[in-house]
């Protein structure tokens, strides 16, 4: 139950009070949901208003062979015009999807309270679905289209990938197929050594690519900017001062951080001073990275809460969906 690191004292009375409060909050939320469903929601406007005792529902309109999601007000207008109409209707699969998404969102967030079976379930579902989706996508886009489609074009188009544009048979596709098969040998204790060959190929190719591209884009191109003039004229005096100051700060930052990571000289005197400036640069950089990370995490939380309030609970409607 303890949320504290090992060795930290926990006041059991405080923990009990916190647990009671959280359970009370959950009970209030559940009660509000029941009341919300009982009161219902007005959908549509004017004489076409319909009351639905639910939320998180998705309405679709048939357009040709497909169904396109439409605002609930469209459904209300259609029903008011013709109660027997079937063109705009509730999409039960998509409604189920909204409820599943809401359930999984809450289940994942419940980990903040403590580890629990709902969180474990959501975690397993996400991992399983992601792995399954990636594997299916890789099989169909790579193995079927790129390998089988080149080795047996007509057969692939006839039985596996209808509509696939095929050309002449390309026997070179046997090479990646063979490397892939060899990689599977890693699963066998006796033949695992065979799997080293495709691994070595992959590591070698990527090392070569990365070496060249890092040197070109991260070393040479970045180093070139160090030879830019320190005086940066701008359209205004403020822009000139700002640009020049930035150029000087970049140069000082590069030299001082290099000094910090240069261990062949003892960090005393001028080198020590430069290294200390380098530490400040590094700390500010880590702080900026932390700030960006916080922004990213809050953005993700905001997106999930907006989904819960808008798509599921219909408490807000910023996008005019219902």
């Amino acid at each position: 139950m303890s949320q504290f690191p090992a060795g930290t004292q926990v006041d059991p009375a405080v923990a009990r009070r916190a647990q009671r409060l959280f359970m009370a909050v959950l009970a209030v939320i559940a009660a509000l949901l029941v009341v919300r469903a009982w009161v219902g929601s007005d959908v549509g406007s004017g004489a076409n208003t319909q009351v639905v005792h639910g939320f998180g529902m998705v309405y679709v309109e048939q357009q040709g062979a497909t169904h396109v999601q439409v605002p609930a007000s469209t459904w209300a207008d259609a029903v008011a015009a013709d109660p027997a109409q079937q063109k705009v209707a509730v999409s039960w699969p998509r409604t189920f999807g909204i409820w599943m998404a809401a359930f999984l969102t809450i289940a994942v967030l419940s980990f903040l309270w403590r580890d629990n079976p709902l969180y474990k379930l959501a975690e397993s579902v996400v991992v399983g679905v992601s792995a399954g989706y990636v594997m299916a996508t890789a099989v169909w886009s790579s193995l079927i289209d790129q390998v089988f489609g080149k080795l047996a074009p007509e057969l692939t188009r006839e039985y596996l990938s209808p509509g696939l544009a095929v050309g002449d048979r390309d026997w070179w596709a046997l090479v990646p197929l063979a490397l892939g098969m060899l990689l599977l040998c890693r699963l066998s204790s006796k033949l695992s050594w065979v799997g080293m060959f495709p691994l070595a190929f992959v590591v070698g190719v990527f090392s070569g690519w990365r070496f060249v591209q890092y040197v070109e884009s991260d070393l040479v191109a970045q180093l070139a900017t160090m030879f830019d003039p320190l005086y940066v004229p701008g359209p205004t005096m403020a822009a000139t001062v700002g640009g020049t100051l930035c150029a000087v700060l970049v140069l000082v930052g590069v030299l001082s951080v290099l000094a910090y990571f240069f261990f062949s000289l003892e960090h005393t005197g001028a080198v020590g001073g430069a290294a200390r400036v380098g530490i400040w640069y590094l700390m500010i950089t880590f702080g900026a990275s932390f700030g960006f990370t916080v922004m990213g995490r809050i953005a993700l939380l905001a997106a999930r809460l907006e989904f819960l309030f808008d798509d599921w609970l219909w408490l807000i409607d910023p996008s005019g969906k219902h």
Partner: protein
Amino acid sequence: MAPRDGQSSFLQRLDRIDRRWIFLAMLLAVAAPILWVGVTGKTFPEEPTPAVQGAFDAVEALPADARVLISMDFDPASAGELQPMATAIVRHCVLRGHRICAMTLWPAGGPIIDGTMQDVLGGRTDFTYGERWVNLGYRAGFEGVMKQMNAHVSLAYANDVRKTPLEQIPMMKGIDGIADFDMLVSISAGYAGAKEWVQYSVSPTLTGRKPLKFVAGSTGVQTPQLIPYYPNQMAGILGAIKGAAEYEYLVNQAVLKADPGAVVPPRFQEAQRRMAPQLFGHVLMVLLIVLGNVVFVGLRPREARA
């Protein structure tokens, strides 16, 4: 006044506070502004930073009918941050009359391309598939795909998602290597994404006949890694949801400038709506950091005595 035996001081109680109170405070700090913005419809004005302005200007500077390759290298896990910027950039390109070639290096990116194009185009019938835009879909291989596309796009993509060979798609006429596009945009959540595009496809063209214009949109976590590439190796960066909000604001202002009576649909203000929860979340974070340091400094003499 020193605490009596068996009684904790205020600082000690703060030091031992159950971290779930902090989670609850963060939940409220983010949820309340969402509800407020959702009910009132108000958003904060944005002041574009040079990196976002650079991205906007780069798209503006392209001639009409320019061909823009947009790689949406993210999945639903990062959509909260990146979807608004994908929508804003695609919308900007559509408004400017550019042609869009969409692709992804992430397996789950396919449906994101479909959803983004549907969001932006809505019921528009003049932006025809094949002539104004094309969806190449997902291709496995990360940097391998980039290297192939540098030489010949058709090496990586023999056909689009509808299984139409590239040579039969009108808007792909004249496209051989990636440098034949007028601009490359990568909206990415990590590997493979904007950094790899700079390294493998953009940097090799910088010393060549036609440098490839590049704009990146990235998650907050990835943005600091990309900033050194600006402005020499990329025209602009949209960093995290803040960058998306600024870009969205610029596009909406351009629409309103062209037609003062226009109404901006709420779906094109998604990032701007997320800035209010950002503000309150960050204020709470700053307060917590200050409070944590006050507790640390306040308890230090007592712990030293102990």
